[in-house]
């Protein structure tokens, strides 16, 4: 990472730590939502951005994770056990969902995952004995960790931020390892990857499973954050929103989901001052953004940094030439 990049990360981390001390409760709720949804977006970025497997099912995995925690914690299961169970359950289901990806690609795969999201929504809505149907589940408790109660908004935000940090580090580790290179190979040229000894079948399933697992872990924090979950929250809209986060931030860019989630969570709130027009403006802003920076906001930043470097390099050439001549 460049010096400027390191500085940006340090500044952003400091801002994330300091932010709740300057915000009202609703503001803290929003940045907690950002932290939680960023985890799901990181998962989707892994599946889509790195491994190139399109998925419209990430919202469904957030739902499965949320319901797992909401159903297990009232039974006396400790939060972190339920949290891990949510991740493992989504890993297993994600592995299963990865099998169609071995046969179909691109928009066909998008339809398979879209059907899965619809299926999960129908189960959450119709299986009332388990999920309480359209009435949803209220009051999922926020955990206490070694005596630290996270009932307050600020405390729970720091819990979410800590988990986001740990999961981000784990994902970064994986992406810098040979696995990360294998995922990119899967996206760019699976036939060549196969001929180089990569078991593309196993890596595809792994990309789906890990991405889904991160969706589940995000959901496991979402339930105690909002303390009321119902099926509509995890319908196709959430999957599209998560896809938007990945694309707007920069698909295949490690920090893309952080930026994308920030835009997707905060921009609608900032535009609320325009009252009834806010959704129109939000949609227009996204369309303009995509038209001018299809590589996402971080792609735009990288382009600007490269242009600046090129300009600097060009500016130094005549100086060197003059120096050489003397």
């Amino acid at each position, binding site marked *: 990472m460049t010096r400027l990049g390191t500085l940006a990360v340090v500044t952003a981390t400091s801002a994330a730590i300091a932010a709740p001390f300057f915000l009202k409760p609703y503001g803290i709720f929003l940045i907690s939502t950002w932290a939680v949804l960023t985890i799901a977006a990181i998962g989707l970025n892994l599946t889509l951005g790195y491994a190139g497997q399109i998925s419209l099912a990430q919202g469904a995995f957030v739902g499965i994770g949320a319901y797992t925690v909401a159903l297990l914690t009232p039974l006396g299961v400790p939060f972190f056990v339920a949290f891990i169970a949510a991740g493992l359950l989504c890993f297993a289901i994600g592995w299963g969902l990865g099998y169609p990806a071995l046969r179909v690609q691109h928009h066909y795969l998008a339809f398979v995952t879209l059907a899965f999201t619809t299926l999960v929504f129908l189960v959450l809505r119709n299986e009332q004995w388990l999920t309480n149907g359209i009435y949803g589940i209220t009051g999922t408790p926020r955990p206490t960790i070694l005596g630290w109660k996270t009932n307050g908004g600020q405390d729970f935000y720091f819990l979410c931020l800590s988990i986001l940090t740990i999961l981000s580090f784990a994902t970064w580790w994986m992406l810098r*390892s040979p696995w990360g290179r294998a995922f990119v*190979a899967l996206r760019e040229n699976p036939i060549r990857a196969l001929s180089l000894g990569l078991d593309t079948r*196993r890596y595809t399933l792994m990309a789906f499973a890990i991405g889904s697992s991160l969706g589940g872990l995000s959901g496991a924090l979402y339930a105690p954050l909002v303390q009321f979950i119902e099926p509509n929250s995890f319908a196709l809209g959430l999957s599209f929103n998560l896809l938007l986060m990945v694309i707007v931030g920069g698909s295949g860019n490690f920090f893309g989901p952080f930026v994308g989630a920030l835009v997707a969570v905060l921009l609608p709130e900032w535009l609320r001052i325009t009252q009834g027009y806010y959704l129109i403006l939000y949609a227009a802003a996204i369309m303009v953004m995509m038209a001018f920076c299809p590589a996402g906001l971080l792609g735009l930043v990288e382009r600007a940094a490269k242009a600046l470097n090129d300009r600097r390099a060009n500016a130094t050439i005549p100086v060197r030439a003059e120096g050489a001549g003397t």
Partner: protein
Amino acid sequence: MTAVLEVANLRKAFGGVIAVDGVSFDVHAGEILGIIGPNGSGKSTLFNCVLGQLQPSAGEVRIDGQVTTGARPCDLNRLGVSRTFQLLQVFPQLSVRDNLILAGQEHQGSMASRLFGRADAGLGEAAAQMIEFFRLSHLAEEQAGLLSYGQQKLLDAAMAFMAGPRLVLLDEPAGGINLTMLGHLRERLQAYHTERKATFVVIEHQMEFVMALCTRVLVLAEGRLIAEGAPYDIRRNPIVIEAYLGH
């Protein structure tokens, strides 16, 4: 001499079209075998059947005496068989160095150990040597997609050698590159062959390249093997001349 690759009565049909029709040949250790033939003669289909990209309709493939007919390409690669493709197949977003590490990493430990091990899978030094061997040192950190076509062809060939394979199948390595780069590629392939005693099978249209590089040549036409011999003899074979030039 030991046969590294044995192909017996290989046949591949696409509906009513027979692309490869009962082809048999052996490749011996340390040999550079050339396969030539007019367009549509079944050369690439033959490669794809040998390397698991296509399932043959009939026949048998053996590598080091072990039957590998229909085995997956990744399993064949782990047996020490590597290949290049007719069209460029590098990973454009990865650097030259990462392309080479990727080409060898699956031969290093288990999948789990690769997750927790070193980022370069312990191949940093080997990749640097390969980069130097193919004279790409000045481009090591460049994205592969930004390289010229000829440089990408060199990288493509270097990737095939990264895992130290026993048998390398090169599908039109000279296709689309200029004469200078062609000479450079041929010289590097010959140097690799001399240094490592590797076995090559080369499909190529560029006759000078085949004649200078290969020790034996097979000729395919309409899916059938029509001639086999030393490059000098093949060049003068009337059946081969007819197959290439027609009546």
